[in-house]
């Protein structure tokens, strides 16, 4: 073996030995686990201290939130109860591209089919509304009651579009599941079959507006319902001028919404949660007494319902709460918590808002927004009234029970 060969052999062996050490030695080590953990006194590590408390809301507000109503049902009608008045108009637009271009066809009948699934108001009351042609473009995702009020030319109120030109009136005998057929002015059908549009021929849809004699609110399935067979539909019978060749077609695709409003007295001692137009609650709890870095182990919010009923009081026993990132309560967290009846109480609704309470310690605290759970807020007139932060019954005011832990006891972070 030459000197050079011997030298390179030594180098190679040494490199291999080192590489082996590098790979093997670090693996000869336990993993630090809870079971083999060691500690000594006087280590200076921080201890923790846990406490809990119940605090009451420092303020609450009833917010008016004009949101687009795009739920599984649309409301039409008017009702009143307990010094309040409710009104809703429904908008329906069948997709223009569905209709064939038949400029010369004769329309012999056009029937609007609606499937009612919701009812509020006096038992046996009368549902009465006019149907008008909408004159302006509109978008279901942005249309609200304010949109309707802002444009007096939104629909053509000079001519009702029922067949006889009179309001449609019905008493809903089975309001939870009843299909209603409304004969429309055949001119509407002819307009929908036209190729071109003009100020007299539009395809912006129709609006159902309650009359003064209406004293119930009905809700019919929308184009967002879970069953296609319940969608609003229009059936048109058309043919040649002599009527010797007829065809019947049904169209059930489009978009719709409702524009609702409530006139309801608001009280500082009451938080009003109203769907359909909507009223929401904004309630604030003051957690400034907690130091930065405090861990919120759990937080339960509790609210109490007022038991005085109204015609529109919801039979539901749940509410939805969100963390809000602005003082107006417009920016809501994507996650929410549901308040449900608290065990052992007939009027208290409670829910876990641990993550929201923790956020109040690390970001501006604008409070909690309370609303009727979706989709009900967008397609019902459900009402829930709660004891507010200024209620005379102090024990029923909105309250928050928190369990929290200081993880820096004995040591500054």
């Amino acid at each position, binding site marked *: 073996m030459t000197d050079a060969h011997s030298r390179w052999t030594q180098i190679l062996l040494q490199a291999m030995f080192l590489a082996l050490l590098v790979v093997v030695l670090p693996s000869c080590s336990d993993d*630090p686990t809870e079971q083999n953990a060691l*500690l000594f006194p006087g280590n200076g590590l921080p201890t*923790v201290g846990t406490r809990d408390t119940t605090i009451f809301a420092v303020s609450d507000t009833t917010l008016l939130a004009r949101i687009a109503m795009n739920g599984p049902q649309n409301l039409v009608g008017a009702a009143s109860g307990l010094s309040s008045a409710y009104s809703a108009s429904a908008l329906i637009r069948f997709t223009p591209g569905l209709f064939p271009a038949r400029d010369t066809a004769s329309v012999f009948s056009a029937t609007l089919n609606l499937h009612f699934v919701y009812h509020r108001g006096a038992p046996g009351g009368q549902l009465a509304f006019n149907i008008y042609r909408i004159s302006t473009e509109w978008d279901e995702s942005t249309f609200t009651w304010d949109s309707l009020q802002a444009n007096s030319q939104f629909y053509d109120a000079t001519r009702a579009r029922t067949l006889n030109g009179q309001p449609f009136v019905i008493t809903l005998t089975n309001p939870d599941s009843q299909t209603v057929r409304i004969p429309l002015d055949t001119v509407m059908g002819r307009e929908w079959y036209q190729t071109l549009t003009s100020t007299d021929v539009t395809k912006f849809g129709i609006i159902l507006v309650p009359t003064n004699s209406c004293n119930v609110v009905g809700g019919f399935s929308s184009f967002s319902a879970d069953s296609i067979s319940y969608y609003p539909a229009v059936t048109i019978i058309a043919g040649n001028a002599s009527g010797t060749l007829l065809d019947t077609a049904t169209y059930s695709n489009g978009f719709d919404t409702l524009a609702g409003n409530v006139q309801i007295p608001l009280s500082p001692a009451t938080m009003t949660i109203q769907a359909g137009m909507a009223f929401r609650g904004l309630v604030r709890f003051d957690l400034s007494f907690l130091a930065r870095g405090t*861990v919120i182990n759990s937080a339960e919010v509790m609210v109490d319902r007022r038991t005085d009923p109204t015609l529109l009081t919801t039979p539901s026993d749940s509410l939805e709460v969100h963390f809000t990132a602005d003082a107006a309560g417009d920016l809501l967290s994507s996650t929410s918590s549901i308040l449900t009846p608290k065990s052992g109480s007939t009027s208290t609704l409670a829910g876990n808002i641990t*993550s929201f309470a923790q956020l109040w310690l690390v970001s501006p605290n604008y409070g909690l927004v309370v609303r009727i759970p979706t989709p009900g807020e967008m397609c019902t007139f459900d009402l829930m009234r709660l004891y507010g932060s200024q209620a005379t019954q102090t024990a029923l005011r909105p309250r928050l029970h928190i369990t929290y832990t200081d993880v820096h006891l004995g040591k500054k972070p």
Partner: protein
Amino acid sequence: MRSFFFLVLAAATLAAPVRVMAASGGSIYSLLGIGDLRPGYNVRAAGMGYAGSTLLSSQYLNIDAPATWADLSLTRLEAGVQYEGFSSSNGTASRYLASLDFQGASIGIPISSGRGITLAAGIEQYSRVNYDTYFHGTGFSSTDSIPYANHFSGSGGINIGKLGLSYKPLHFLAIGASFDYYFGTIERHQLYNPSSSSFAGANVIQSSTYRGAGTTLQVLFNDLESIAPALKPLTIGFTINSRTVLSSDNQTYYEFGADVTNLPTSFDTSAQASGQIVIPLSYTVGASYLATDRVLIAVDYSTRLWRHASVEGAFSADLRNEQNIGFGMERLPNRDPNTSWGEHIALRLGFLYHSTYYRPDEVGINEWLVTGGMTLPLSLETRLHIAAEYGIRGVVTNGLLRDKVFRLSAAFSIGELWFVRPDVE
């Protein structure tokens, strides 16, 4: 060229897995102060009980002893790693945690061999925090009991970057000085984890970033034949490291949530706070004696005055003055190229008594080490230094812990004629 290639290959082999394997945990005592203080990464000194402050040599580069650079004849590069393991016990339970870590690197460039002027620079660890432990407890509110586990872990440390010069104005006097820049980050984690998913917890991370500057001065006396012939093989030295104030930026990060290890639901960051840590004055007195042409004996005494140091403006009762007494012997390699390869290997043995700066619960933690090492010549000027240490520190009385310490260090050293001007005849 071949040496350079080998150094690169070796560095890649060692460095690549370092970051992956350096996180298993270390001694629990490193949660005190600024962690375990490192004795320097000079592997030759490690094999001799860390008694290396007075070892003048043309073959070795000790970045912590600037006067010893005066005898360098070639540009020398060194880089090292260390495997460190702690078998910790409280008298009942025990565990073994180990990690592999980059120790440091340095370069020395002789500018004028005749006057012993050498420029050197390097980087090394000054302290290391590496602990991982748990504490269990139960929190009580008026309505609930909340069992929890607190997982404490720490990592990071303080490093030093050094840049200095040596000078040998007289044949028996060498002086050296270096500018030392301290820097580093220490992170301390606390994972507060309630046992029940009904309660949320938090992960708290305290991060402190340090920086500051100091100096090292060293004076060596050797070749004292003019005083007495018997003193010719003797070298004595004195080294002082200045008191240094490190400014710190401290910040705490919070992660809150029901499952903080997976999806924290909210975060918070504290305001950044400034602070100070005072690295105290330290000094070393050492001596070495060339008993025969191949046997070298060395002894060092050093102390760091931590009892006068302050951490974030307060004196810590958990710290005390640190002291080291090291003794070592070395069989020098045979310079005759005609001898066998084994004769070219340097062998070392040493002992160290280390009174650490830890003083938990008013009980000082002391360490005893036996060390050994060797230097393997890989080529004409390429060497592999290896050192092994084994020792014990701490006691199991008063609830304290005893660590059995095992360390294995390795460093590559190459010498090249880079930047060295040949003497003009």
